[in-house]
């Protein structure tokens, strides 16, 4: 009896500027295998389905338990993490492609810098440094902590940006990921001291208002983060901020 194999059709690209092409691979089946273990097999023995020697396929990975976000790629048309993509649950042939919303480095590896730049832009942190001990911060209500915790599960994987129709080369929209982090850090009692600054940043070019409510992000988020609720909540916050900026006098 012939050995059971799994067929992969992988969209490859040799460098940042070269044209993509498809290459097929047949990988021996093992029970419980995931996309990454199949890619590792290809890496050990880089021979394509035609039996020709080829370069090993490259991809990013780190934690292997769906908390780091590094191994995201488009699997059978859907962006998701390759570590938690079990071969038994996928239709074959399995098609792999890089998330083209991001610049492709090589094969399935993409440059996710724009999301980290966006986090810096919106100041997705809580400033606590000082020249003296500032003492303990204000306490956070438990109920608020519970929903804020959900937002903190974001692993900057990029799936929401890949799914969003308004994040593309024609638009400068920063995407759902940094926006939800603004809601998270504005919810924190100490982070709230810089609330207006974060809101004003996302009221700038490429900010919040670019959302077109397709809600693909919330449907695609592997962590189940309520991204569209965050966006709607920020819509209200920025409405109030805009009125305060124009009509109000007490700024903070």
């Amino acid at each position, binding site marked *: 009896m012939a050995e059971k194999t799994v067929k992969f059709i992988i969209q490859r690209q040799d460098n940042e500027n070269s044209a993509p092409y498809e290459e097929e691979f047949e990988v021996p089946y093992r029970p419980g295998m995931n996309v990454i273990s199949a890619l590792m097999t290809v890496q050990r023995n880089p021979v394509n389905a035609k039996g020709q020697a080829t370069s090993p396929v490259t991809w990013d990975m780190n934690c292997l338990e769906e908390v780091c976000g590094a191994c995201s790629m488009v699997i059978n048309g859907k962006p998701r993490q390759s570590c938690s993509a079990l071969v038994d649950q996928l239709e074959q042939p399995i098609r792999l492609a890089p998330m083209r919303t991001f610049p492709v480095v090589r094969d399935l590896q993409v440059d996710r810098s724009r999301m980290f730049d966006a986090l810096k832009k919106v100041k997705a942190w809580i400033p606590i440094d000082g020249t003296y001990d500032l003492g303990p911060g204000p306490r956070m209500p438990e109920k608020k902590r519970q929903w804020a915790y959900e937002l903190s599960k974001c692993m900057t994987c990029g799936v929401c940006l890949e799914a969003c129709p308004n994040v*593309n080369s*024609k638009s400068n929209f920063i995407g759902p990921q940094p926006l939800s982090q603004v809601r998270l850090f504005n919810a924190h009692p100490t982070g709230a001291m810089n609330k207006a600054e974060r809101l004003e940043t996302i009221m700038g070019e490429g900010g919040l208002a670019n959302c077109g409510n*397709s809600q*693909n992000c919330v449907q695609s988020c592997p962590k189940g983060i309520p991204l569209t*609720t965050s966006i709607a*909540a920020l*819509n209200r916050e920025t409405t109030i901020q*805009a009125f305060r900026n124009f009509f109000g006098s007490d700024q903070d």
Partner: protein
Amino acid sequence: MAGNREFFNRRLHSLLGVIPIGLFLLQHLTVNHFATDGVDAFNKAANFMGNLPFRYVLETVVIYLPLLFHAIYGLYIAFTAKNNVSRFGHFRNWMFLVQRITGVITLIFITWHVWETRVAAAFGAEVNFQMMQDILSSPLMFAFYVVGILSAIFHFANGLWSFLVSWGITQSPRSQAISTYFTMAVFVLLSIVGIQTLLAFV
């Protein structure tokens, strides 16, 4: 406010779609519904509307300027999207696409509609029951009006949904779901009004 121009433009776009353009659509559909009461009722209503004091000011401020901004900025919004319903076939993503398609159809329809009625009136044609009867006697134009009116109504109803989200009124998934049912009911009811009126002319 220079840094906030995009934010301001987007919010203005959202607001103008409802006030005044959405309100004008409601008023326009209502007044035209007089056609179902016969020729005289329609002509009387059309005369009243057409002879309102400060008509040109009203038309410019309430209709032309907001519509022009909404249309031009809307085209920009529509063409900066990269639609992906084939990969993400969720309900809201379809609505996102249909909102953009109906927006473009509505713009084409309204351009033609204004040309055929208001511009024609400026050159001396009289806007009355007879005019609409002549236009709608062609099956092709009748179909065009059906598609145009349904597009405009859908674009308004679904736009009302996104208006509620964009201004931060509906935040929770539940409120957004209920406002979907509400706005789709608005679409169905206004469509009945629009189609009934069209049928009155044939």
